């Protein structure tokens, strides 16, 4: 764990302690379980986003993808009576296709990630609304899928299974990002794509793979979100979720220029964001201020982090001077 991550963890604990003191309900099992469920849902989404941001890209369409794929998933199993395991795989596959198309447009046709995914944001939202004719996709009365519901919205020993899923995914993705050849390529491309290309890395494929990973994780979270809300009105479902994901990554130390950030960072960023949401509810802050609180905290976090970097650089230089002077004195 880097110092940055440690700082974020301490911040989370301090904020948690303060909220718990003011409103002890914060520590009630039911509140903790609800919050960790949300952390699970948003965490999966944010890890996907992180893989794109590390390459210096951005994925703005995830909120709309959550709406579209969630709608399709419910429609598949509730209306079209596709077996849920098949529907599950189908949705992940669609997520991969969306990622692949985005990656292809960005790496082969050299379109800017912002533009491609902004268009995606508009297109998928529109398609989702058209698909349901602006209605709501949901389950019929009495319809249930015990295994699926257990896996997505259920709990094991009081811990939401969505949170457990996040932990498993996080461990796998940590290895991929921080230990694998592919992860090193991602960092190299994020730092300097040209130099990576001149080192013989097939940068196009690597970047495309990052968008595919993002697409699949987004699809997975779309299923979780769908099973959490159980009914989807495509006009608003998943709205601004791309911003939650980007915010979690930025809070977690990712640079939008690429090449910087850690998996633990984006997890902690997600935790902090959900803690803040919870804080707004528990402390009786008007929920209309929700976004303002989030924005304020992110801004302060990024500012402190940057100032800390400046301070450290200065301290290093002072140390070096002292050592230099001492060295000369010794001579």
């Amino acid at each position, binding site marked *: 764990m880097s110092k940055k991550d440690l700082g974020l963890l301490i911040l989370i604990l301090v904020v948690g302690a303060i909220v718990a003191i003011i409103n002890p309900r914060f520590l009630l099992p039911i509140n903790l379980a609800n919050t960790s469920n949300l952390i699970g849902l948003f965490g999966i989404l944010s890890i996907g986003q992180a893989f794109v941001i590390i390459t210096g890209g951005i994925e703005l369409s995830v909120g709309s993808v959550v709406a579209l794929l969630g709608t399709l998933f419910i429609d598949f199993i509730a209306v079209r009576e596709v077996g849920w395991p098949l529907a599950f795989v189908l949705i992940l596959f669609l997520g991969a296709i969306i990622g692949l198309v985005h990656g292809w447009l960005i790496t082969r046709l050299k379109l800017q990630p912002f533009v491609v995914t902004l268009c995606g944001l508009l297109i998928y939202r529109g398609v989702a609304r058209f698909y349901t004719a602006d209605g709501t996709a949901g389950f019929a009365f009495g319809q249930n899928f015990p295994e699926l519901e257990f896996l997505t919205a259920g709990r094991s020993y009081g811990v939401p299974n969505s949170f457990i899923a996040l932990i498993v995914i996080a461990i796998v993705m940590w290895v991929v990002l921080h230990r694998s*050849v592919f992860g*090193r390529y991602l960092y*190299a491309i994020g*730092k300097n794509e040209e130099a990576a290309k001149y*080192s*013989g890395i*097939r940068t196009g494929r690597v970047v495309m793979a990052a968008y595919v990973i993002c697409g699949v994780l987004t699809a997975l979270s779309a299923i979780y979100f769908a099973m959490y809300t159980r009914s989807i009105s495509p006009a608003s479902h998943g709205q601004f979720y791309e911003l939650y994901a980007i915010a979690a990554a930025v809070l977690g130390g990712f640079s939008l220029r690429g090449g910087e950030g850690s998996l633990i960072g984006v997890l902690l960023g997600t935790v902090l964001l959900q803690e803040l949401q919870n804080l707004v509810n528990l402390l009786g802050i008007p929920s209309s201020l929700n976004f303002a609180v989030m924005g304020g905290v992110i801004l302060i976090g990024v500012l402190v982090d940057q100032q800390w970097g400046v301070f450290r650089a200065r301290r290093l230089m002072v140390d070096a*001077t002292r*050592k*230099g002077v001492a060295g000369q004195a010794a001579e």
Partner: protein
Amino acid sequence: MNYSDTSIVASTSAPFLSLENVRKTYPGVVALDGFSMEVRPGEVIGLVGENGAGKSTLMKILGGVTTPDSGTITVDGTAHDRLSVEASIGSGIAFVHQELNLFDNLDVAANIFFGREPLRGGPLKLVDRAKLRTMVAPLLKRVGANFSADTQVATLSLAQQQMVEIAKALSIEARLVILDEPTSSLPLAETDKLLDVIKALKADGISVIFISHRLHEVERVADRVVVLRDGMLAGTLPKSDIGHDQMVKLMIGRMLKEREKASEAARAPGATALSAKAVRTPAYPGRPVDLDVRRGEILGLAGLVGSGRTELARVFFGIDSSLGGTLELGGKPLALASAADAVAHGIFLVPEDRKLTGILLDLSIAQNISLPNLPAHARRSLVSAGAETATAEKQKKNLGIKAPSVQTRTGTLSGGNQQKVVLGKWLAMNPKVMILDEPTRGIDIGAKAEIYGLMRALADAGVAVLMISSDMEEVIGVSDRIAVMHEGQISGILDKDRFSQENVLLLAVGKQPR
């Protein structure tokens, strides 16, 4: 003797700038140690020294960016403890940096008077373009520019861009123009133009400090050479004593033999390694190139900037695809869709722009060296830090990379050591064809000699080495054969017995050699 004559005599005797006992220390390093020099009006000073000798610190002090710890700076008769940026500009000191500071999306006139544009009246303060153009025209004429004020900077060659920089210096009525490595990216003919501009400045009574690693150019223009070594004045050479060997001796405190060693008798040519037949690059689609690089030779590729050398290298390395023709490697057809394909075939490129394409400055030495061959440093797709370190340690030792450890960030290394890291990542693999694009640009003399030695060792080991270089001494001193490009085509190939500066130059401008 009339009145104006005495004024000239007076002005030539009083120095425009003089430094006395200037000292500057950085944490742990003495960058300048009791350094003194003076510059008279209309004098061209050649300032030479290895990287790290203190030249940049000196420039920063003169530009007012850095404050000296002690010493006096006298400009135009006024003594200062330190210069501010404003004082430096105000007293007529202008810089033309190695890395050009131009906005290439703007035109020439806008660049020269950036921030000082003549304005029309009225609340909108629109730029008076007509007046701007009339102000720029005479400046361009003084630097001998063959382009107009409304040319986009992006379309100009490097030499032309440098002229814009000099015109900018003249526009603030500079009395001392400091040129920091102005020719490092210029080839022959364009260098001559720049040296002419320096002579014109001198004739106008403007002083010039000319910093360069290219000693024969210093030899040609300097009235006096000041040599820096380890932050101290290693010596001053008057006009009559300026010579390549004297400068080198003062710079490194010993004589250099490496280059002579590299240019022994011609070797027996090996089999053809890389062969291009009617290859057409995107830069010159109408001009097919035929070129053979043989095993065991260093083939020098000379030519003017923009003659298509780098573009050819990019095709050989799979970055750009050829628009036609065929490539062969060891007699077998070669299809390159990407740099990854070239690397897989053992064709490696040490690119021209080290910091942008050669290495990743934020990664460590070990991570840079393992990058092209990462799967070999991994077990089940997981990177093995131990294997990486081992490879890097080997290259560090082999190449003499000076760094605290292989975990050091490459961004903190000197240019020469960074270049060795680029070489190291390819040497750790198994090169068949090694392409080096301006391999010694901006690298000091000691490291240059080491890089020449490495190239020779590669050739001796049977590698085909293709060296693109704009440095005439280097091309002639290092190559076994020289191919010269002119406007996208090979205008001729010289064997060792026909090597001469003149022949290379003639071919570079598209004429026949003698």
